[in-house]
């Protein structure tokens, strides 16, 4: 499809755990087990799931920060799956990432100016008006004082650091940004500021986002389309409105019902689906549907045959017995 900036087909990413000195058995962690995702131009796709579902690995593999085990990644019509680092470099100017932790993702020994300008140095670009002026404009754009260009990261609060990370990501005008839990380390009042900033920047620069997060309320706020993952597999894909109003996959349903709503009257009258147990280990995922160990609708078929992602109503659902 030409209107998609990103097209991922059958993405597989396995990690080998090391043997260790005491001779522990080598294990294969199946972090991502065959994922299809597409992101349209100017679109925000939310990628949600609980910890260990592989959402971060998907984001990083798309940017080729990890080598994919199998599958294909097509970025702006180009198959980049097998691209070497040197071939990736010019493309990296088009694709950027914003990290979750605003503390560990900024080099404490570099000034804010150097951090934000790093892409200019790496790609040997000189923006119009010079690097310093551009960096100051960027700082101002993300809501920081341009006079603070010579300060170090420790002089800023968590929310301000996240703004620095955003300024760095948009500095060379990328087309596509993977935002990996960009607001989950922030307080609510600051979180809202950053969500709105990401919204504004998208409109201004025509950005496409892959928004990776575990917080469904933030995802529903910012995304056009949502992909729900569980244990390395896609469970459901739908337009945001459709997904939140009529979830078809039992897991999506349970996940939505678990999100607390800040209203005591609604909260106390809700039917809540409580899932039993925990996420199984990705080293040894259940056979058949990966969700079958916690699903209240699971039958023999679910334990033997892995469901395909099929059209159900307006959504795509991987379930033998969709709601």
């Amino acid at each position, binding site marked *: 499809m030409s209107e998609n900036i990103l097209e991922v087909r059958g993405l597989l990413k396995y990690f080998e755990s090391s043997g260790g000195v005491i001779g522990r058995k080598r294990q294969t962690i199946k972090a991502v087990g065959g994922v299809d995702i597409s992101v349209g131009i100017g679109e925000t796709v939310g990628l949600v799931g609980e910890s260990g579902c592989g959402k971060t690995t998907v984001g990083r593999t798309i940017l080729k920060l990890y080598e994919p085990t199998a599958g294909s990644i097509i970025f702006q019509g180009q198959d980049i799956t097998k691209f070497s680092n040197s071939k990736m470099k010019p493309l990296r100017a088009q694709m950027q990432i914003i990290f979750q932790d605003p503390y560990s993702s900024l080099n404490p020994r570099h000034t804010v100016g150097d951090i934000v300008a790093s892409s200019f140095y790496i790609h040997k670009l000189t923006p119009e008006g010079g690097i310093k002026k551009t960096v100051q404009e960027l700082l101002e754009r993300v809501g920081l004082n341009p006079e603070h260009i010579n300060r170090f990261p420790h002089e800023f609060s968590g929310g301000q650091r996240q703004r620095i990370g955003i300024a760095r990501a948009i500095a060379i005008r990328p087309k596509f940004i993977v935002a990996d839990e960009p607001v989950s380390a922030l307080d609510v009042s600051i979180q809202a500021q950053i969500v*709105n900033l990401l919204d504004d920047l998208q409109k201004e620069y025509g950005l496409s986002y892959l928004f990776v997060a575990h917080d469904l309320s933030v995802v529903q706020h910012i995304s056009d389309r949502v992909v729900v993952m569980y244990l390395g597999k896609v469970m459901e894909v739908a337009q*945001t409105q459709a997904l939140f109003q009529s979830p078809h996959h039992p897991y999506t349903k349970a996940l939505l019902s678990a999100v607390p*709503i*800040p209203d*005591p009257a609604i909260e106390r009258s809700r039917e809540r689906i409580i899932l039993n147990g925990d996420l199984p280990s990705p080293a040894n995922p259940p056979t058949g549907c990966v969700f079958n160990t916690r699903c209240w609708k699971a039958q023999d078929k679910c334990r033997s045959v892995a469901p395909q992602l099929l059209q159900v109503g307006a959504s795509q659902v991987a379930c033998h017995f969709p709601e």
Partner: protein
Amino acid sequence: MSHLLEVKNLSVSFPTDDGLVQATDDLSFHLDLGETLAIVGESGCGKSVSSMAIMGLHNPKSTQISGQVLINTVLGRTDVITASSEEVRKLRGGTVSMIFQDPMSALHPYFTVGDQISEAWLLHNDGTKSDARKKTIEMLDLVGIPDAKSRVDSYPHQFSGGMRQRVMIGMALINQPKILIADEPTTALDVTVQSQILMLLKEMQREFNMAVILITHDLGVVAEVADRVNVMYAGRLVEEGGVNEIYRNPVHPYTIGLLASVPRVDQAHGTRLKTIPGQPPSLISLPSGCAFEPRCEFAKYVPGEICKVTRPEVELKLIDHHARCHLTAQEVRSHL
């Protein structure tokens, strides 16, 4: 009748090289048997510091504490601030117990969970090690650890995050406390596990008739479990009232802003989030007037420089509903 717990004018501050950090300032509240009080606020608002004061956990050498923390039990009244460390130790883990955000760092990795829970029981009860083990297995069973008889000999790393939090809850409840302080008990957990743990806490509260202080930044969790809510900002209590009151008729501008800035799953997609401009003040150099004034959208309705200069006191604004603001409830709500 006196309350189970009364905190009166509690101030905790830490002297540092950069100056005095005023972590909580003139904090007063109370707690009754069987109720759940939520303390809400953002990082650095003093919610954890005040709960540590209730547990008597502050190091007196590096902390300045004033005020009273009164715990009333059948055995009499104790002021945790002035009591001897021996007396406080008897309360801690007995009458008052606590669970923490991160169960992995709160459990000792070298000992089995059974040993750790038994130790807590033996500290407060006369009995043999095998009595303690029996109690521990009962407790693990109660908090929903499957196959408790064999899991009692497992180490913390052999449990998942949710199961570890169940172990923590079991350890906190082994001496049937009257007050349980839960400091961000579900923040490190996934939502589906969070609902399991919140349900368990509610069941345990009923089972032991405990009062629970729930410390959290998650307004959704508060709406689900709290009876009363304290909202804190920059070390001060800014609003206090019943949970329905706080969510339906918030009267402090900070609470209003906080509630409006939370994205909700039941909200229409694509609406713009309301924000509170700016960021919380440094606790070293708090404004002399209202701590929220620099970010407050309502300060302009107060004549003159009152908000900048004079610190508001906690006043009754509506029925059973207090706030620290120079405006009346009617004035605030007329400008919404």
